[in-house]
């Protein structure tokens, strides 16, 4: 390998210095690597070369004209001059042309102070312009709630256009018109809807595309930059947060090739807006005689201590944490609960099936680096929609697909991907196991001839076809997504996936809900294992059990029971029966006020410190960028004070880093493990789902509704991907039920009838009903896996 590389190396001379480079590499990449700066606008290392701005002109020996460094491949012996009079005059001339039409309005431009054009104009621009004619003016476009346009400032570098086509996979922006009349826009008034659209803000070298929510709220030089980790999915994108004083003003990507490359999702970029929502809890509150009043921390902690240490009630305490809580918070939470003699602690708020608990790996993960997704030739996504659940995982899948890998989706919704899938199968949840079983059986039989326990799965034509596709791969990855995690027979799906890849020499892994499911397992925030995956003495209640069987007292950390659990209605009904519920939360809500007796304000994104473990097993630590507002405190501090007050051992850490160190020592180096193939439990008969009278429930958490912070970020809430209040049924199901699209219906989810609107949706398999979690309709869901829908007369 290395010999080959050496053969491909050439030596060129840049400004008199010899530089080694890979043959055929573009000059600008070589000079960048060598630390020689060449000005540029249209070039971006993650985009194709357009070579349209001409700012990167350099002198190349024996070339008659200056050459664009971004489009000139290096050749052995090439002599390049980046600062010769010829190069500089080419760059200056380019700058003069660019400034012909560019407004000189930097003082009122949001990009001012961090504008590539402004910077380069300083270096290469002339103080006087030869151009005295009028500058052109381009009308601004409204392209949605996230990206602000000032198109007169556009310099036509087409980075944003190439981003749409090459990265977002959604060609929304384009260059219409010609010459002087060329404009960047959507042509017909239209909003950008890509889940990655905000990245054009960073890409645009000038102030043509800027952040709408951030607009005019600060100047670049007033901002302090801090490093942070995004908290909305298990990618754990690295970000910079920019704060003005104690106010978090914006979030931009921090480059990390192994995790988020140079991108972040819109969810990670704009969620900070929720921090200042009016629901933000600023002081502890206590409920007395049914009325809420503010109290000080002392009162709050005394009340909490009294409630949870009531004699004889120790095992009647339950603790539930959002799966995006930090490792340190979950570590202290479980230590607190276990210290009081209970083992009821969990973070798997959306999980239904806990039967596989004992055979789970030490912590859930993909089991491989994100970049390996790009190297696979066959990727099977089982149950999940990474495009919305983990947008940057989807980006890796897309790259794999563009490289020629086959990506296959087996799910309960026919979701839209921004690349071509090789096969897509959407079946009712109950049939998902049957399909995966049949695929696995077909694959195993091809390999070894005998099916064994797999004989319980009836062969199916579509499964055999998929099996053939999958078995044709050399590097096979099977990824279980968020819907698989929520599946009623999760454990069987996971066993099948493990068996499938075992016979193919492939690998399997899982994506999880929230940002830190992996950290939760490592921290011991599961009822059957302690920190570091150690056996816990007593086995406590899992989340589902805690939320169906009332306990005496509950501690809730960082979530809303009516939005973030698999069976919100059941959860709320259970919690109201408890004698005492304390919620550590950044936001209050009517439901929290209904179920809780004590509300404790906690630090949120950018204010908190601790660590998160992402889906590739990367343990990432962050510190606060700004102070939490009011008297809100980091949850780890609250838990430490509480444990200390209750006289429990192990609550003396002075800093968050002490806790991290202690936990890491317990975990060793967290080695990612694949799924365990485990004995396949028998299941229900593989009955085809009947339409009448019950419909199988399919739940999707909308892209921009994942957690309490995102749900309060105003711009994201104006995007289309926030779910809706409809009961989504396939056209065939509607016909069978004799319902029209938009008909008023009565939905029964296992309690009282709820009125709703039926919506025709061909992405839903027949006999199923899609309801978006976290919507008002979603809060009505119970533990029932099926629902009934019947007409209520009338159409909306």
């Amino acid at each position, binding site marked *: 390998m290395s010999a080959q590389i050496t053969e491909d190396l050439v030596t060129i001379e840049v400004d008199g210095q010899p530089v080694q480079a890979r043959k055929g590499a573009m000059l600008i990449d070589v000079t960048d690597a060598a630390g020689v700066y060449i000005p540029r606008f249209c070039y971006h290392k993650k985009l194709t070369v357009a070579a349209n701005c001409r700012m990167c002109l350099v002198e190349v020996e024996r070339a008659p004209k200056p050459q664009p460094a971004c489009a000139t491949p290096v050749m052995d012996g090439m002599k390049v001059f980046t600062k010769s009079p010829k190069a500089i005059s080419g760059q200056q001339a380019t700058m003069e042309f660019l400034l012909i039409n560019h407004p000189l309005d930097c003082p009122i431009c949001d990009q001012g102070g961090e504008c590539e054009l402004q910077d380069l104009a300083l270096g290469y621009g002339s103080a006087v312009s030869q151009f005295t004619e009028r500058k052109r003016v381009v009308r601004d476009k409204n392209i949605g709630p996230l990206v602000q346009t000032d198109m007169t400032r556009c310099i036509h570098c087409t980075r944003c256009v190439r981003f749409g*086509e090459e990265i977002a996979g959604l060609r929304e*922006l384009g260059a*219409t018109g*010609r010459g002087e009349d060329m404009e960047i826009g959507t*042509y*017909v008034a239209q909003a950008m809807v890509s889940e990655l659209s905000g990245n054009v803000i960073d890409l645009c070298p000038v102030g043509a595309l800027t952040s709408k929510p951030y607009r005019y709220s600060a100047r670049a030089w007033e901002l302090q930059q801090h490093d942070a980790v995004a908290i909305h999915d298990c990618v754990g994108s690295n970000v910079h947060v920019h704060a003005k004083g104690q106010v978090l003003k914006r979030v931009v990507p921090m480059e990390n090739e192994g995790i988020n490359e140079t991108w972040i999702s819109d969810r990670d970029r704009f969620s900070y807006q929720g921090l200042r929502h009016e629901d933000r809890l600023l002081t502890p509150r206590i409920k007395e005689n049914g009325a809420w009043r503010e109290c000080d921390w002392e009162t709050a902690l005394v009340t909490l201590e009294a409630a949870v240490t009531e004699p004889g009630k120790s095992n009647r305490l339950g603790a539930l944490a959002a799966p995006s809580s930090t490792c340190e918070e979950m570590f202290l939470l479980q230590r607190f609960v276990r210290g009081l003699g209970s083992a009821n602690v969990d973070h798997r708020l959306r999980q239904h099936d806990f039967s596989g608990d004992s055979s789970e790996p030490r912590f859930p993960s993909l089991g491989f680096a994100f970049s390996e997704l790009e190297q696979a030739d066959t990727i099977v996504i089982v149950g999940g929609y990474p495009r919305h659940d983990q947008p940057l995982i989807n980006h890796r899948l897309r790259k794999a697909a563009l490289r020629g890998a086959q990506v296959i989706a087996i799910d309960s919704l026919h979701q839209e991907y921004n690349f071509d899938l090789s096969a897509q199968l959407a079946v009712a949840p109950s049939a998902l196991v049957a399909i995966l079983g049949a695929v696995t059986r077909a694959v195993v039989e091809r390999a070894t001839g005998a099916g064994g326990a797999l004989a319980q799965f009836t062969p199916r034509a579509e499964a055999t076809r998929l099996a053939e596709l999958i078995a044709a791969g050399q590097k096979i990855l099977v990824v279980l997504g968020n819907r698989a995690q929520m599946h009623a027979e999760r454990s069987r799906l996971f066993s099948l996936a493990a068996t499938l890849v075992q016979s193919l020499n492939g690998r399997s892994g899982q994506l999880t809900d929230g940002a830190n499911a992996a950290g939760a397992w490592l921290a011991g925030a599961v009822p059957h294992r302690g920190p570091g995956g150690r056996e816990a003495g007593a086995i406590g209640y899992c989340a589902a059990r805690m939320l169906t069987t009332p306990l005496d007292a509950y501690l809730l950390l960082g979530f809303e029971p009516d939005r973030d659990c698999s069976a919100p209605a059941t959860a709320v009904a259970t919690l109201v029966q408890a004698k005492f519920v304390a919620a550590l939360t950044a936001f209050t809500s009517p439901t929290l006020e209904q179920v809780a007796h004590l509300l404790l304000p906690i630090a949120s994104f950018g204010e908190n410190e601790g660590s998160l473990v992402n889906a590739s097993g990367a343990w990432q630590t962050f510190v606060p960028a700004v102070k939490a507002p009011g008297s809100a405190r980091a949850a780890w501090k609250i838990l430490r004070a509480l444990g200390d007050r209750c006289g429990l051992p192990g609550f003396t850490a002075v800093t968050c880093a002490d806790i991290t160190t202690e936990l890491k020592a317990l975990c060793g180096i967290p080695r990612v493990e694949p799924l365990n193939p485990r004995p396949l439990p028998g299941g229900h008969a593989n009955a085809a789902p009947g339409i009448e009278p019950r419909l199988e429930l399919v739940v999707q958490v909308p892209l921009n509704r994942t957690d309490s912070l995102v749900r309060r970020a105003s711009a994201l809430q104006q995007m289309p991907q926030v779910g809706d209040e409809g009961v989504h049924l396939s056209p065939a199901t509607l016909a069978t039920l004799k319902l029209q699209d938009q008909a008023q219906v009565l939905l029964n989810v296992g309690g009282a009838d709820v009125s709703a609107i039926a919506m025709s949706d061909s992405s839903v398999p027949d006999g199923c009903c899609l309801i978006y979690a976290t919507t008002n309709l979603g809060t009505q869901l119970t533990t029932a896996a099926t629902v009934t829908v019947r007409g209520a007369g009338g159409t909306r």
Partner: protein
Amino acid sequence: MSATDTQVLSSHACAVIDEWIAKYPPEQKRSAVLAALREVQHENHGFLTTELMDAVANYLGLARIAVYEVASFYSMFETKPVGHHSISVCTNISCMLRGGDEMLAHVEKRLGIKVGGSTSDGKCYLKPEEECLAACAGAPMMMIDHIYYENLTTEKIDQILAKLT
């Protein structure tokens, strides 16, 4: 391609587009976009609508914006409603020297419109000046619906315009 596209595009247009698609390698189907727009514009009496461009985009499997880009780039495509006879009077150098400007002024007077406008009956569209139409030997000249009329005089123009239906 969906049902709606075949409703928007006539079967004849689809057949013509298919013929063009067949001329290119399958992965370069997009090359048929110019021919497709030309045919669709022709059938629509001289201009494109967003609906038609969207239909072409779907038919060729292109992003809509990619079709808008092409349609707005080339001056032979009209993306706003215009009269269905397209009249271009050359005023480039040779024609200018031979009275092209007067010819244009005459056409404007006869039609009662300025360059860039269409007559209210939707019949004629006076297309903004293009570059030299490469018929300098017959200057002054104009082009109506791709047909060249050379060595123009005001009388000749009257006759030609009178014959337009």
